[in-house]
């Protein structure tokens, strides 16, 4: 009897190993369908103690926000082809995918932003997608440009996103602002009156946010990377400390905490949307992902949405355009189904419509975009903003930009010397690019 603890341990180990041996022959229950909401009886939970890795015919990885949409299109495809699918929300999707794909443990299909492509290709983690020219034509040219890398199409885009200007109708009225200065002035008036706590929300945070600052930076004359003759980004032409870039830095500084205090480090990605949705900010720069919360907070008719206007007397504001896309994993266990799923399962008007509805993104397929222009003017605005924007650079050099540039913005907003901050960031980025 006193030996029981060790005996038990051995027995448990043995039963788990036996389960391993038998698992190959039994069909695993579809993980996606057995929700855990039902209270499992003790005996059930005992058998569930060692779930077996999904052996579905098609495994798709995405992040938590896009899970439901992916599940919907995957289920349709699975039904039509009589196969099983598994859709998984994975933390830090891109890095996890690269590691797992390399180890032969990854999914068959990856869903994610187009600016991942550079790193994915560098690691040989995704395969080019060979669509016919006609199939490619069904998508918006900017979206296609975004998922094209080294002259190869690597992903099938389903949604586009771009920053736009949201304003609270009950605070600044139902106006479309011609310049960003007008929007700020209207917001400032409300702020002075005590109606709101922020005139214009632009996420900055302690470490800066180069993505959200890009429209302001470009309008005031800055640019990130120049382009070569073919329209590809040139990592050797960094525009941060060009004359235009420094002027833009000064402009951002003048809006910062030591200037008009519109831009503040206390507003970050964590609270940007919720502050606006609760009516505490007059205007906000954000993207389509904010729409649900904004509608829930301010009502379907409580806000206005427009492409971000430029500063008065300055250039147009050019946010980054982003595309969400499907990729074929280079080391998947079900490549044929993966390729067929993307080329034939997702690449249809029906699937794209489902994705648009459930992922809540302006569609990349022009036919779907046209069909929804009437019902969803918000998406038309964002799609238009995306069309005129430049795709976020997917080149590996871009990875070296985010952190230093963000920090420079945070510094400038806090009141540091804009020229020096920007030059410091540019130097740090050049060093990093040269070293990689």
């Amino acid at each position, binding site marked *: 009897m006193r030996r029981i603890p060790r005996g038990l341990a051995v027995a448990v180990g043995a039963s*788990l190993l036996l389960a391993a041996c038998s698992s190959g022959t039994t069909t695993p229950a579809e993980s996606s369908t*057995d929700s*855990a909401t039902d209270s499992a009886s003790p005996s059930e939970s005992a058998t569930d103690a060692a779930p077996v*890795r999904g052996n579905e015919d098609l495994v798709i990885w995405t992040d*938590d926000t896009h*899970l439901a949409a992916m599940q919907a299109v995957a289920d349709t495809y699975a039904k039509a082809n009589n196969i099983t699918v598994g859709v998984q929300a994975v*933390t830090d999707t891109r890095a996890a995918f690269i590691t797992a794909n390399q180890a032969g443990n990854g999914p068959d299909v990856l869903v994610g932003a187009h600016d991942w492509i550079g790193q994915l290709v560098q690691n040989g983690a995704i395969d080019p997608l060979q669509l016919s020219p006609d199939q490619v034509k069904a998508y918006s040219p900017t979206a296609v440009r975004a998922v094209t890398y080294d002259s190869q199409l690597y992903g099938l885009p389903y949604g586009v996103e771009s920053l736009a200007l949201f304003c609270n109708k009950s605070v600044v009225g139902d106006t479309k602002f011609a310049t960003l200065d007008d929007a700020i002035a209207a917001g400032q008036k409300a702020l002075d009156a005590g109606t709101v706590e922020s005139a214009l929300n632009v996420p900055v945070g302690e470490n800066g946010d180069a993505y959200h600052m890009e429209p302001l930076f470009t309008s005031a004359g800055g640019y990130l990377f120049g382009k070569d003759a073919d329209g590809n980004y040139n990592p050797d032409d960094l525009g941060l400390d060009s004359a235009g870039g420094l002027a833009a830095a000064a402009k951002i500084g003048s809006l910062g905490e030591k200037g008009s205090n519109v831009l503040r480090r206390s507003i970050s990605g964590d609270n*940007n949307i*919720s*502050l606006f949705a609760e009516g505490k900010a007059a205007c906000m720069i954000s993207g389509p992902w904010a729409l649900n919360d904004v509608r829930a907070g301010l009502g379907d008719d409580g806000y206005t949405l427009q492409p971000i206007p430029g500063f008065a007397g300055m250039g147009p504001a050019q946010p980054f355009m982003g595309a969400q896309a499907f990729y074929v994993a280079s080391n998947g266990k079900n490549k044929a189904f993966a390729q067929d799923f993307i080329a034939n399962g997702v690449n249809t008007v029906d699937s794209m419509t489902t994705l648009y509805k459930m992922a809540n993104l302006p569609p990349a397929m022009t036919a779907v975009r046209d069909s929804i222009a009437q019902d969803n003017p918000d998406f038309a605005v964002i799609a238009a903003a995306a069309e005129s924007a430049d795709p976020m650079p997917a080149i590996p050099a871009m990875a070296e930009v985010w952190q230093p540039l963000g920090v420079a913005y945070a510094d400038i907003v806090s009141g540091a010397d804009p020229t020096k901050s920007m030059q410091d960031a540019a130097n740090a980025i050049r060093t990093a690019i040269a070293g990689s």
Partner: protein
Amino acid sequence: MSATTQTTSDTLSTAGGPPLRRDPNDTQPHGARWWREIGWRHIVGVVAIVYALIPILYVVSASFNPIGSVSATNLIPTQFSLTHYESLFNDPNRPYARWYLNTIIVAVVVVSAQVFFSALAAYAFSRFRFRGRRGGLLTLLLVQMFPQFLAVVALFQLFSSVGEVFPAFGLDTLAGYILLLLGGSLGQVWLIKGFFDSVPKELDEAAKIDGAGHAQVYFQIILPLVRPILAVTGLIAFVSVIGEFLLASIFLRETAVKTLAVGMYTVLDGDRSNNLGWFAAAAVLASIPVVLLFQYLQKYIVGGITAGAVKG
């Protein structure tokens, strides 16, 4: 069996406590003396409680606040709703109940194994004199200071090849994740060894003279005596297993096998500003087993550690 140990721990706790010769109520001082000897302690206690509770209050308040965003939350809930709690159990993409169950399975197996194996090893280090004992103890301590997380790439490669041979222990399996955490099986050796040291050796020796084998002495005499420290180390191990998410986020990617920590982190990671309510409700429920365990084990934690007094 339980009866024997019950009495053992009871004797120990009273033996270790301050000598209570009179009824405690009679010793209660009054007036200024009360303030000098007892009252100020309450003030310190209350201040400490405020410090301890404010962040927790905030989480509880956020879990009941229907808006569920960072900026909308105050310490005292202005609105009350159970939406977030309901949403824990009716979103098939976030099977909270399943994650809860997974966490409990992992925690129970890992904690039992860790306490059991640690106690075995601690006994050897405390009672036997053998070559390499001192070096072994120190190596153990040093090796365990290496965060498993630093070897994450190596671990990932190891387990993906384990998965090819034994699919039940590969990535995305609870069994594999449990095995991974069993690497810390000796994590509690130091604490338990200290406790063993305080149990008089005469006890084992007497039993051995009576003809008991070393295993018999260990399982029948020593182990029941040290149950309090097993409870304490079990609790410490439980807390660390429940909170582990760095490795879990790399090893458990399928929705159905996630633990609470990695499942909740994935949700918050997806959108930090708007899932706060869901997250807060999830956190409140996730803390309940630990709190209950604390309450249940308190008699061991406080009374139990006093067994060290046996030595003195």
